[in-house]
């Protein structure tokens, strides 16, 4: 591990990026520590933040061993939302899969569809037309905006209670999110689950007047973002709850596979939209917000800055969407028409930057088959939840709730 003995060293070069040296630790808590070693008299209280809890962001069971109010060991249990999506992907054809993976990250569904479709296009060798690429970028950024809005609201709930100050913040952000859901309803017909992307492009074309509606929504959101900043950023209670809480070591984040706003708040300057551009991101210079403190407040500031950046990207692209077809593959009438052309097994992996980090799909294609042989989804939230045993040690229960909220895991994609 990197050495931080020298206080003059401000940042270290690790893993291709420079990370702030103040956050790097020599040792990490041991998630497999035997509780008997800590406390032979078993004075600790084991508390289940059970699958039903208002603040676990889904059905996550976290078993905490508490010394008073301070957590000594944390063991997460997954699988409560496991629906066998990967097995289902082996049975369904390539065209049928996006509507199923919609339900993984149910807060920004088109991200899942995009990740899966990009992998399938790589596997099957399908070209995506220009119009579809630009539309994909616009829609991805709109999804990022609505996902971060939901995150701000639910984080307020964690901190303030549903009957209380958090409830007010929640209702306000959902009011803005409704505007986005209306946009998507105009485009695809669905509010939450769209079945919009397909290998080769998309299914629905932009209806007339949609661009004007997008501009209107973005203008409204920009004014409201100022309101949210006024409400939270300088609020003493908010700062007392989030500043210095849940500091994440960037080297640990890298090794665990954590990317996205959580990593960027710990100083890791990495964003797939800028560094490995897909869709039309090479036409827009994405400015990536990075902060050096690594605590919950830093994650909040990074996500707010990302929202502003997404607004800028959409405004850049929305007025110049090129004309043309929206799908490179023939719109299939029979679901079995897209097949692997090679004679042996083919493999593909492609990743996108979802609001939580690197969302990718590893696909194995069987020759002469219209279904994938093995479709593994690499969900960013899985790695975020795997951070919990390291992060929760030494925190109070209230802090654990705030930290879990600030990581923004979505249990749908953790369990699939």
């Amino acid at each position, binding site marked *: 591990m990197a050495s931080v003995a020298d206080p003059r060293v401000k940042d270290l070069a690790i893993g291709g990026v420079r990370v702030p040296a103040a956050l790097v630790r020599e040792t990490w808590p041991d*998630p497999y520590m035997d509780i008997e070693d800590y406390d032979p008299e078993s004075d600790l209280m084991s508390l289940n933040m059970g699958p039903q809890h208002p603040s676990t962001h889904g059905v996550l069971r976290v078993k905490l061993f508490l010394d008073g109010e301070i957590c000594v060991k944390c063991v997460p249990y997954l699988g409560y939302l496991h629906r066998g999506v990967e097995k289902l992907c082996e049975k369904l054809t390539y065209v049928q899969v996006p509507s199923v993976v919609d339900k993984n990250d149910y807060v920004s569904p088109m991200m899942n569809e995009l990740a899966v479709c990009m992998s399938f296009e790589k596997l099957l060798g399908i070209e995506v037309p220009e119009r579809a690429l630009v539309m994909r970028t616009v829609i991805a950024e709109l999804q990022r905006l609505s996902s971060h809005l939901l995150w701000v609201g639910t984080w307020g709930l964690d901190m303030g209670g549903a009957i209380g100050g958090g409830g007010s913040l929640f209702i306000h952000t959902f009011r803005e999110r409704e505007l986005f859901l209306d946009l998507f309803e105009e485009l695809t017909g669905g509010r939450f689950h769209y079945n919009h992307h397909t290998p080769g492009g998309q299914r629905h074309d932009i209806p007339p007047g949609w661009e004007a509606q997008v501009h209107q929504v973005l203008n409204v959101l920009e004014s409201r973002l100022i309101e949210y900043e006024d409400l939270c950023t300088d609020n003493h209670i908010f700062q007392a709850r989030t500043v210095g809480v849940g500091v994440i070591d960037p*080297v640990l984040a890298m090794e665990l*596979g954590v990317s996205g706003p959580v990593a960027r708040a710990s100083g890791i300057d990495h964003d797939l939209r800028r560094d490995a551009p897909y869709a039309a991101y090479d036409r827009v210079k994405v400015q990536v917000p990075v902060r050096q403190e690594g605590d919950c407040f830093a994650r909040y500031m990074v996500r707010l800055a990302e929202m502003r950046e997404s607004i800028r990207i959409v405004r850049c692209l929305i007025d110049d969407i090129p004309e043309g077809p929206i799908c490179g593959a023939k719109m299939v009438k029979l679901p079995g028409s897209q097949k692997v052309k090679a004679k042996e097994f083919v*493999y593909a992996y492609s990743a996108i930057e979802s609001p939580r980090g690197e969302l990718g799909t590893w696909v194995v294609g069987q020759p002469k088959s219209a279904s994938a042989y093995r479709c593994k989804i690499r969900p960013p939230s899985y*790695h975020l939840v795997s951070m919990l045993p390291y992060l929760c040690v030494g925190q109070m229960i209230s802090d654990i709730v705030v930290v879990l909220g600030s990581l923004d895991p979505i249990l749908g994609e953790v369990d699939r």
Partner: protein
Amino acid sequence: MIPDDARALFERLLEEKDPHPEIGPRVPCDQLLAVARALKEELEYRFFVYCAAAHFPAPKDAEEGTPAEILVAYRVRRLGPGTVTVPFHVRVPVDTASPSLASLYAGADWQEREQYDLVGALFEGHPDLRRIMMPEDWEGHPLRREYAIDTPHFPWR
């Protein structure tokens, strides 16, 4: 595409001149930890992307004795501008353990547990290899090819 520095490393450690572009070179089990450590510490591929396993049963028209195999594919990434990923994989017969990367990459811990749970890939040296998604008393590995999607399991089905 595999970047040049990784390609040079594979050539040096494994004598592999032409690795598969998508799943990387096939690494023998006894060299897996050495290769991964070299990638991590010499070439700074510190971001653990995924560990994915796939079950390949013996094809029906193969000769007697061709074993069913499990492919365990890994991928690591170097972050920052110009990010690149390096894949590599291991192929083991079913019910044989491959070495675990959990001591090198903290992220391999849970990923390998998931692949053990769903595909039945065994990992030697893993600190806590038990089921993560399915309930503890589940029998069978659901993502094996012969596991039917509607296999009954009381009380869920």
